[in-house]
């Protein structure tokens, strides 16, 4: 925090009057980098541990700090993971991937469309029952999925072993609506009102004015929704038994079956599991952070 304060324009309050602005700037930058470099390893270490471990023999993964040492590296864990899934009986790795991808994409895309529309209607349109609906949405944000998993299981039992059962319940999301809502509400009302005065219909305003200026919230909802969909576990456990519609997170359970746990293969699976999420993140983070300032999000 101190670093940030030093960085803000404080020419008069700063104690060292003798220094030039430039020198002070350099010092404060150096301090900033120092802190950033101090903190970053804490965030990276567990991830590095997984990545390095995924190339190491399983019995060398758990070895204190030695877990970081890149010794005896090989692709064995990766070929081991692929090799486990090689028949109709156990399914195929690429097929798990495909299933997860299809399910996640439907959830993300469908979710972006309907949740943002609903959030806009709640944030910027007046209609009968809006406040009631809003209260219910906030209530639903609180509800963890685990709380409704069993009733949902009873409801959807007829759809066992399908893609539908994996995406239908997750497209509409109270949390996504809530995120969109808080963003839309912070967009100055004048922007849409002027368009309305010009005769544009609400939907038109939404599509041509609100959506283009809301990239950050779309990006963050995309990342969070994709992550949640991609890691979906509890419901597929109940609803999926056939390998042809089995998502990735279920398949990883194979490696946790019987000790000794094959940590190397679990980490390799973990790396393969996380790649698409990281890709989605890297693609969307541009909008995610950039343009937040310009779109007038009020604190």
């Amino acid at each position, binding site marked *: 925090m101190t670093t940030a304060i030093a960085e803000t324009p404080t020419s008069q309050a700063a104690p060292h009057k003798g220094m030039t602005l430039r020198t002070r700037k350099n010092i404060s930058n150096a301090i900033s980098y120092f802190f950033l470099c101090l903190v970053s390893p804490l965030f990276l270490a567990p991830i590095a541990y997984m990545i390095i471990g995924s190339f190491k023999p399983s019995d060398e993964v*758990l*070895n204190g700090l030695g877990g970081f040492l890149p010794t005896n590296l090989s692709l064995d864990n990766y070929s081991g993971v692929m090799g486990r899934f090689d028949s109709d009986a156990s399914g195929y790795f690429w097929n798990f991937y495909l299933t997860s991808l299809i399910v996640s994409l439907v959830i993300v895309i469908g979710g972006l469309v309907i949740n943002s529309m609903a959030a806009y209607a709640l944030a910027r349109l007046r209609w009968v029952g809006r406040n009631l609906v809003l209260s219910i949405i906030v209530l639903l944000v609180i509800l963890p999925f685990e709380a409704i998993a069993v009733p949902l299981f009873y409801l959807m039992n007829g759809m*066992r072993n399908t893609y539908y059962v994996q995406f239908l319940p997750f497209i509409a999301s109270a949390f996504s609506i809530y995120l969109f809502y808080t963003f839309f509400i912070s967009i100055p009302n004048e922007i849409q009102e002027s368009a309305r005065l010009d005769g544009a219909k609400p939907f038109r305003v939404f599509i041509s004015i609100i959506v283009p200026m809301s990239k950050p919230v779309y990006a963050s909802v995309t990342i969070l929704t994709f992550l949640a969909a991609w890691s979906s576990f509890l419901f597929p456990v109940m609803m999926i038994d056939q390998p042809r519609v089995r998502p990735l997170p279920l398949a990883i359970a194979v490696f946790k079956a019987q000790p000794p746990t094959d940590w190397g293969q679990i980490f390799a699976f973990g790396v393969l599991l996380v790649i698409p999420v990281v890709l989605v993140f890297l693609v969307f983070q541009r909008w995610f952070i950039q343009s937040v300032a310009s779109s007038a999000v009020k604190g």
Partner: protein
Amino acid sequence: MKFRHNMHTRGRSTSILSGVAVVAVAALTLTACGGSSSSSESSAAAGDKASTAASAAASAAASAAPAGEVTKITVWAQEGQEGEVQAAKDEVAAFNAANPNIQAELTLIPQATYGQTLASTYVDALPDVYEFDGETVGALVYAGKVAPLEGLVDQSVFDNELPSLVAEGTVDGKIYSVSQYDSGLALYGNKAMLEAAGITDIPTTVDQAWTAEEFQTVLEKLAKVGKDGKAIDLKEQYAGTWPGYAFTPVVNSAGFPLIKDGKAEGSLNSPEVAAALSQIASWRQYVDPNADDKAFTDKRVGLAWVGHWAYGANKEALGEDLVVIPLPDWGNGTKSGQGSHSWGIGANAANKEAGGKFLDFIMQDQWVDQITKANGAVPANKAVLAASELYGPGGDLELYGQQLALTCGSADPTPECVTVPRTISAAWPVINQKFSDAFWAIYGGGDAQAELDKAAKAIDQDAADNNNYQ
């Protein structure tokens, strides 16, 4: 649902070259299931394809099959240990080759979630034949998910099986499961380390078992030669419901079953049991946490409390120093666990007879031999056990066979019997969970009596809620 399912099977099979014959099978089942009247046309077409392909098919099974009489059965098995998975695949392939009229289709489901998947699958969606944890047979019978096997499975199968497994599969006088293997639970010892610690009276048969006091001394001595003052590996990293298997024998050895006459109160929470479990908790200082699963093989500790599955790695690491020792005796004689994976037939299965044939097939000595060679478990068939180099007379693991021959069956454990089937009760999932929770709480320093009281009360309350599982 069946209809949809078969449609998918068919689509996939054509794209993968496992043979046109399978298409016929799938298509015919479509008709057999009666899912749709419109399917007759497609099944006839597929049948034609199958018969033209038949001559070309490498599989003798497919060519011998008159397309009209093929029954398809679905088979579920746990996907865990690689040797078992391979054995399951081999068995299904061999069965299909040997029985042209019945074609089994195997589905593997990850072991870690297998139980949950079974619990959340309604009986109509269950396959014809499926594997499950032997200890859950009571719960499956109560849920109406398994069919009695007598009449479906040949009587000789039961006759050949170890008594421990017949006992485990029997609920209310009917047999609901068969098993290809049983489990063995005892201590593995490192003779060199034990002797270095001055321990020479190493028991190798059930009647020589150390008493709990003697064992306490053994641990104290052994800790002096072990790494970092550790003496034993209790496989605490298995966590979860490991105590339900590994430490129920302690309860039995202290003189009590987990539940007596349907009640845990007065049995599970008796002071003797509390004392025995407290003693185990007091050993925690000697226990290697074993997160790398190598405490014993790296010779950090001289004893390991674990099942037969550790034999391969242990033998490789220790060679002639490896000894198998019965679990300590808390007064009622040494006790041990039994039970492993079992097989049953879905209660509403469309093809129960064919399922029975499948079980007959995999229970043959040949397959029992193959799978137990792959996973190291105790062969379920008496003949295979006797012929086994490991488990037979003079073998390294003879103790396991000895223990399993002395099964307590469904009676309360006496000093004479050794292995106790995990409570063949519909309440087993609850008992297992509550006992395990209590064990870990005690192991973590909780008050043994209080924890067991709590567990007993919860078990009995659950039974009362469910009309005592009548």
